[in-house]
């Protein structure tokens, strides 16, 4: 089965769960006076679930004729590309998200930019480090000091 149909199958599952919630469980806790209204919180989701199931079904059964097109990257030959770098960068983003608050903006961001460049093959440390530090400092100053949006600059244990 082609990838687009696998995805349609997953989306069909999501629409069924969404529809089940909208049709059968969502209205259980509805206040009696709200039940007299012509529109309930579940009304619009009910319509969407039916439309979603129908559209997923059309793709799954191939009712709309279409040819399988391979985009700019052939997902069946992923190992031919720089898959390792992509996966490492995605993991780095997750680590950054988890470290941003405990380690502070300045340290986390500098490390993210330096390690990100390193993963992509950059080895010019004399360029990577100053660029990362200047960019991090500038963004922090702009966001925190100029725009007034709080970004914890230093690690949590330092109390800032």
């Amino acid at each position: 089965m082609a990838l687009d149909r696998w995805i349609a199958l997953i989306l069909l599952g999501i629409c069924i769960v969404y529809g089940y919630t909208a049709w059968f469980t969502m209205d259980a806790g509805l206040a009696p006076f709200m039940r007299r209204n012509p529109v309930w919180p579940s009304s619009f989701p009910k319509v969407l679930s039916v439309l979603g199931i129908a559209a997923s079904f059309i793709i799954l059964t191939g009712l709309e004729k279409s040819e399988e097109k391979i985009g700019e990257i052939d997902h069946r030959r992923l190992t031919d590309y720089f898959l390792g770098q992509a996966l490492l960068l995605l993991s780095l983003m997750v680590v950054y998200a988890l470290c941003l608050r405990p380690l502070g903006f300045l340290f986390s961001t500098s490390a993210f930019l330096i390690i990100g460049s390193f993963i992509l093959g950059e080895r010019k440390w004399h360029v990577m480090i100053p660029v990362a530090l200047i960019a991090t400092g500038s963004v922090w100053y702009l966001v925190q000091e100029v725009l007034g949006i709080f970004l914890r600059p230093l690690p949590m244990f330092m109390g800032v």
Partner: protein
Amino acid sequence: MLEGILIGLQTALSLQNLLVVIGGCLIGTFIGMLPGLGPMSIIAIMIPVAITMGDPSAALILLAGVYYGAIFGGSTSSILLNAPGVAGTVASSFDGYPMAQQGKAGKALTIAAIASFAGGTIGAILLMIFAPMLSTVALLFHSPEYFALMVVGLSAIAAFAGPGQVTKALLMTILGLIMATVGEGALFNMPRFTAGIMDLQSGFGFITLAMAMFALPEAIFLVLKPKNLGDDGGEIKDLRITRAEARAIAPVIGRQSVQGFFIGVLPGAGATIASFLGYAVERNIAPKHEQEEFGKGSIKGLAAPETANNAACTGSFVPLLTLGIPGSGTTAILLGALIALNVTPGPRLMIDEPQIFWAVIMSMFIGNLVLLVLNLPLIPYIAKLLAIPRNFLIPFILFFTLMGAYIGQNNATELLMLVGFGICGIALKFANYPLPPLLIGFILGGMMEDNFSRSMQLYGGVSFVLERPMTLGLLLIAAALIIVPVLRTRLAK
């Protein structure tokens, strides 16, 4: 009217106000380039500065300059990085980003600057002529018509997805609408589909989803299959638009200035709907061979949303200035600023305080001109962003993607959601599912449900469809937009 124009010019052309509009445009452009900070946030940030200025005309001129600058700045990040910071510039990335990838970043930014200037200027002329009259027409549109108008907009986006792609685009639109129902709705004071997770109470963040569907997959694709973004090595060879290209985009700019302006007048419609509808309409009426170029770097596909969103921004001032009704989130913030400045917008504003009314309109002309004059010489430098080596540029794109989501919500969980949605976006891109409809569905979902629910409440059910001829007509158009291309594809096989 002539007297009003002269009063407005006198106010807007004072040295102080000229400096204010130039400053506003510059601030708006540079901050608007940061994904995550749209016009709404920037105007909100600038309100204390505007209020401390004391003079309501100068304050409004500053905020209007910031508004225009932010829209142009948002287009820049859409075109260069495929990272639209605001909903109104999402459509600009459909063709702007492919142009940048083809080494035409300079040309794309020039077209964006000229289209924005033309859209804003023509919009301001229309505002001057039609403001008093249009305020009454806008009131004829009620919830059922707004709901139907949004259905037409979404159907048009799905219908023009290309042969064999209509159902996929429709499914993506529905998925976007489904995602918009997560969290607490405006009409129903209860959380929906949150699975008890506190972070989902306020729903998914627009910026998070926009970054996950556009910027993140694009950056990961650049990692998977490296290509030189700045094929011209940072030299912007084709900054100028040829005569043939100017001839091609001139009618688009003319049409979309008018269409965008009138959509902007409708409260609740605004720059987002105007830009998507503008894109869809131009794609639909283009000759067949040009239709195939849309989404791959068509200059018409870039000029249409850029013109429409600026014209709509101007149009959104009509209900604000003449009725005191904000047509969008941004104009709602402007209304707050007006009230803080002791100015009461409404039908009497033109009579009681003509210097404010006309000064704002005149500052729109000046603001647009300032944006063009300031931005055209800066384009080669802005576009050099793409000449940064890939090893440095990609971590920066990923960082700004993360920051956009973080600044918007100030919540680290948002970053994890961003990565999760980004992975889904990559999978959908592999399978050739069009991603823009998902984001459009998400953006319009809340408004669509509100109007649907309000219509149901007013008419006691779905009878509003039959009782309001304009609603029925719009819904029939929407149905035709979906059915006709599907049937045409089947019959062609």
